[in-house]
């Protein structure tokens, strides 16, 4: 799956096409293209809700497509913690100490949120893994959306089944539902806010909910977002990670 984080890390200007009779796959592909960006520079925050506790984490970040990303946390408790992703490798550093994450540990959550490293790492396209069919239409926040059913039997598919609500007009994915093999709903994600950037609407605020554990959710928001600006190579260097 094209990770839903990546559509915050990278956006691409895309001209929405008026769909005549599009197949599910085509809709999906459009949605994926819609949220791709060459480069991205942003600041933002996570609000992690765990039952009665709440944690707020602020950060700033840079990314190039879904190949490279660099994130640094700026909230008081986590100041100095940095993440660097290059292709399929991930490093985490703090005050000059660095460690690499690989293997099944990528499934662990980032900073205790409902997003996992794996979610961040994935760089293959949903359209390549899933069979897509249109299940209907539904209105989400005053937007009419296609409901896409995604099913996969490929090994290591992130979820056995997904449902995505894609806006009919703007082809922005507004809602996701992630299902277990058993058919049980495991997680859901919803776009709460979009903003016009470079004369286009982009999702900038999203909530991810753990549907198995009541009260567990994460809200992700980009406060300041610039697209397709030049990013110096040194940002994605080990040096930057350790400084």
């Amino acid at each position, binding site marked *: 799956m094209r990770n839903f984080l990546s559509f915050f890390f990278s956006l691409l200007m895309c001209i929405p096409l008026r769909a005549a009779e599009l197949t599910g796959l085509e809709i999906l592909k459009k949605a994926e293209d819609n949220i791709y960006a060459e480069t991205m520079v942003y600041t933002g925050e996570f609000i992690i809700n765990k039952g009665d506790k709440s944690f707020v984490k602020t950060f700033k970040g840079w990314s190039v497509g879904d190949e490279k990303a660099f994130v640094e946390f700026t909230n008081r408790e986590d100041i100095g913690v940095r993440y660097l992703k290059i292709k399929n490798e991930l490093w985490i550093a*703090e005050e000059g100490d660095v460690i690499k994450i690989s293997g099944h540990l990528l499934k662990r959550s980032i900073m*205790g949120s409902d997003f996992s490293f794996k979610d961040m790492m994935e760089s293959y396209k949903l359209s390549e893994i899933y069979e897509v069919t249109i299940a209907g239409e539904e209105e989400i926040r005053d937007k009419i959306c296609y409901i896409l059913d995604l099913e996969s039997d490929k090994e290591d598919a992130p979820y056995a089944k997904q449902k995505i609500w894609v806006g009919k007009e703007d082809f922005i994915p507004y809602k996701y539902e992630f299902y277990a093999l058993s058919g049980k709903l495991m997680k859901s994600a919803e776009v709460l806010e979009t903003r016009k950037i470079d004369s286009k609407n982009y999702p900038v605020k999203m909530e991810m909910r753990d549907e198995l554990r009541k009260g567990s959710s994460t809200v992700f928001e980009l406060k300041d977002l610039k697209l397709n600006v030049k990013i110096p190579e040194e940002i994605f260097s080990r040096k930057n990670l350790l400084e």
Partner: protein
Amino acid sequence: MKHIIKLGFKNIFRNKRRTFLTITAVFFATFLVVIFKSFIGGLWDSTINNVIMLETGHIKVANKKYFEKEKTQPLEYYIEDAGELIDQLEKLKGVNFATPRIKAPVMLNINDKNYYTQLLGINPEKEKRFNVIHEKIVDGEYLSSDSKGIIVGSGFAEKFDLHIGQRITLLSQTVYNSISVKSFEITGIFTYGIKSLDERLMVAPIARVQDLVKMGDGTSEVLILLKDINKSLAMENEVNAILPPEYTAKAWENQENYFNMIRIATQIYNVVYFFFLLLASFVIINTILISVYEREREIGALTALGMSQGEVLSLFVTEAGILSIIGSFLGSLSGGLIAFILSKVGINTLALWGETMSEMNISNVIYLRVQWQTVIFSFIFGFLVTIIFASIPAFKAVKVDPIRALRAT
């Protein structure tokens, strides 16, 4: 009555051999009862000692929610201002000292693979007072409070080819539900003798761990070591009385996981002790019976001389009583003394049998647990068993036909 006692003493001195044997039997019985019970006490102590040293302390203080979710070692439920609390606890009478501990689940990356393990934050100086880890260092050095280093188990070091001076980087959760990264220099390697520790445990000074998990001045647990372990339940109440409502104290017996194990082991040891008592009684009874049987002839003579049956009986019982008092007194007292010495020196149980262990093991040396109650009990036990079993056969013996008794030569 007086003349019975006089006669009793005379008889005792007259037949030195029998006197000696009876006293010996009672002596050994009471002596061994004390040693046996003290040994079992020591065995027991050594069993729970590991648990106390590694996990529970005599009493553990932590956030209530920490206890509830102890399975996941939740860092976010911790005790703030650990230093202050520890000072307060150490002022309590009965408390020997209190020491903080943080258990952080951490991850490291070696040869491009990530591994989970546990990092324990301790106060190195205080730990020395009840934990043997400082004696188990096989390479490098033990920790000190201001050290920047970390010590790891030898199994762990071997598996990943780690050596002194090497730096490893750890990834840990924090109390803010986030992640932090820190590197440590390996300054020591230990061999505890317990596989899971040697292969997975790392220990660092608590200040460094507090830093790593961003706990400030706090701690996950405070272990209290008492002056007298037997007062743990009473002290639990005292400690709880001074704690703020979010925290609670639990004596080691009440720390759930070990409850079953404790109960079963206690029963086994108690039953074993009970049977040893039976055996010891039996030896005493055996000796008494034989001597009473032997003296049938005397009974006949005494009756013929005009002593009433009641007087003869009193005589026997008195004699037995005198012997048992002497035997029990000497036996239980010397038992207590030897046990006391062994409680300080300890017995190396495996060395006695000539076996050697290739790995060091903490539980081979047993320190006997001496209690004055055991000594007193042993004395009373020896005395009662002798008196009762001297009386019963004496009863029967005095009914013997004096003629027949005289004839039994």
